[in-house]
């Protein structure tokens, strides 16, 4: 939630003698193709769900065509597709094809259950054929905690999705990367990423025969649906204090905003997906829409911050690739 007055992240930077945050390069184009999703998760920072069908919240073919042009230009090394369930956008497969044609690595932020949706029966094979890296959300290795956050039955569907990916070689072959994303199911930080990965491996691999490459631990951002829950449950202030007390200057170097630009469904540019959801565009001194994309300028832009950025610098730090220290 944007703060009314005080930017607590900026306060933390000053306290540790750090200057303003700025990008240092541009490797990744993270494209949020929309809020349409087959799940309704309690922590979702984009308020995604099956009801989000409007043209105002999902990327149309015109903007997707501009994204495709940028990707084909070779301006970035990685295309990171997110949503909602990005696979449900009609432009998803076209963007994947364009990126792979251009030799760009593609990451699909997949909720797993989408692999079982009617009309998506061939999705897993499509991803495997194009060597798309799958970054799959699975908040916990137990049914009760997963279903409490993501909806009844989601854990079992996720396992089915994982097995479908495993059958194609995902999780075991080097060219078919399958990484899992863990996020806490409440107002607490993720524990040590390596230790949690061992726990996930013990339960999922040893216990259920599920193969995966890495576990990414991501801190819940105090925005949108999760912030609403924090307020409702009386946890907001204590959670913000936990994030502020756990501020780790070492995490600043690896922050995703330093090498990534986030594209909204309408083509506007943001420093990250979280800023996008808060309606915070990139600095007014740089291009603010994908049609004006200029990688050299964007690679050196100042980063727009607010109190929620403490979520990315708490403890071991947090990014779309998990812990950053």
């Amino acid at each position, binding site marked *: 939630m944007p703060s009314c007055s005080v930017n607590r992240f900026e306060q933390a930077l000053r306290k540790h003698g750090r200057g303003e945050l700025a990008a240092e390069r541009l490797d990744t184009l993270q494209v949020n193709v929309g809020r349409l999703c087959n799940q309704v998760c309690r922590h979702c920072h984009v308020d995604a769900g099956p009801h989000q069908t409007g043209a105002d919240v999902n990327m149309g073919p015109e903007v997707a065509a501009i994204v495709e042009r940028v990707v084909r230009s070779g301006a970035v090394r990685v295309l990171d597709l997110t949503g909602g369930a990005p696979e449900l956008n009609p432009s998803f497969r076209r963007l994947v094809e364009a990126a792979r044609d251009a030799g760009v690595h593609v990451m699909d932020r997949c909720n797993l259950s989408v692999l079982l949706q009617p009309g998506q029966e061939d999705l897993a094979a499509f991803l495997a054929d194009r060597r798309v890296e799958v970054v799959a959300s699975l908040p*916990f290795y137990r049914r*009760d*905690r997963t279903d409490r956050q993501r909806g009844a039955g989601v854990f079992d569907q996720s396992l089915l999705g994982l097995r479908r990916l495993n059958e194609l070689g995902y999780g075991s072959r080097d060219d078919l990367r399958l990484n899992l994303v863990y996020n806490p199911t*409440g107002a*607490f930080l993720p*524990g040590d990423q390596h*230790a949690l990965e061992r*726990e996930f491996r013990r339960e999922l691999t040893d216990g259920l025969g599920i193969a995966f490459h890495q576990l990414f631990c991501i801190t819940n951002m105090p925005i949108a649906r999760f912030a609403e829950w924090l307020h409702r449950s009386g946890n907001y202030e204590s959670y913000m*204090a936990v994030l502020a007390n756990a501020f780790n200057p070492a995490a600043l170097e690896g922050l995703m905003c330093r090498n990534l630009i986030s594209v909204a469904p309408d083509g506007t540019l943001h420093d990250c997906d979280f800023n996008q959801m808060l309606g915070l565009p990139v600095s007014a001194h740089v291009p603010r829409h994908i049609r004006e994309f200029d990688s050299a300028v964007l690679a050196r832009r100042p980063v727009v911050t607010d109190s929620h950025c403490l979520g990315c610098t708490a403890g071991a730090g947090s990014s779309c690739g998990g812990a950053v220290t």
Partner: protein
Amino acid sequence: MQDPYYRREHLAQFSAIGESRPDLAEKFFAYYGAVMGEGTLSAREKSLIALAVAHAIQCPYCIDAYTKGSLESGADLEQMTEAVHVATAIRGGASLVHGLQMRGHHDQLSM
């Protein structure tokens, strides 16, 4: 309002104990950190042990800290509840096994 013996903010302020005899505090916190880090036991297992001990010694600060610590390290409510039952069983068992002392005294004193 009555000043409570236990104050929630003391947990976050724990390091202030080092304002006197910082040398001792430093040794304690270094030892604490070394004990609770990953070892032959996982962070999750150590958090669950700490949670059980917290209940055995009935320390509200420790219950607060290791409920959160257990969740952070990947334990779930079932495991945490089992840990509390372990503490309860040991505490109860410790009382009950002293019953053998009682029986010994009884037999000594009785005709």
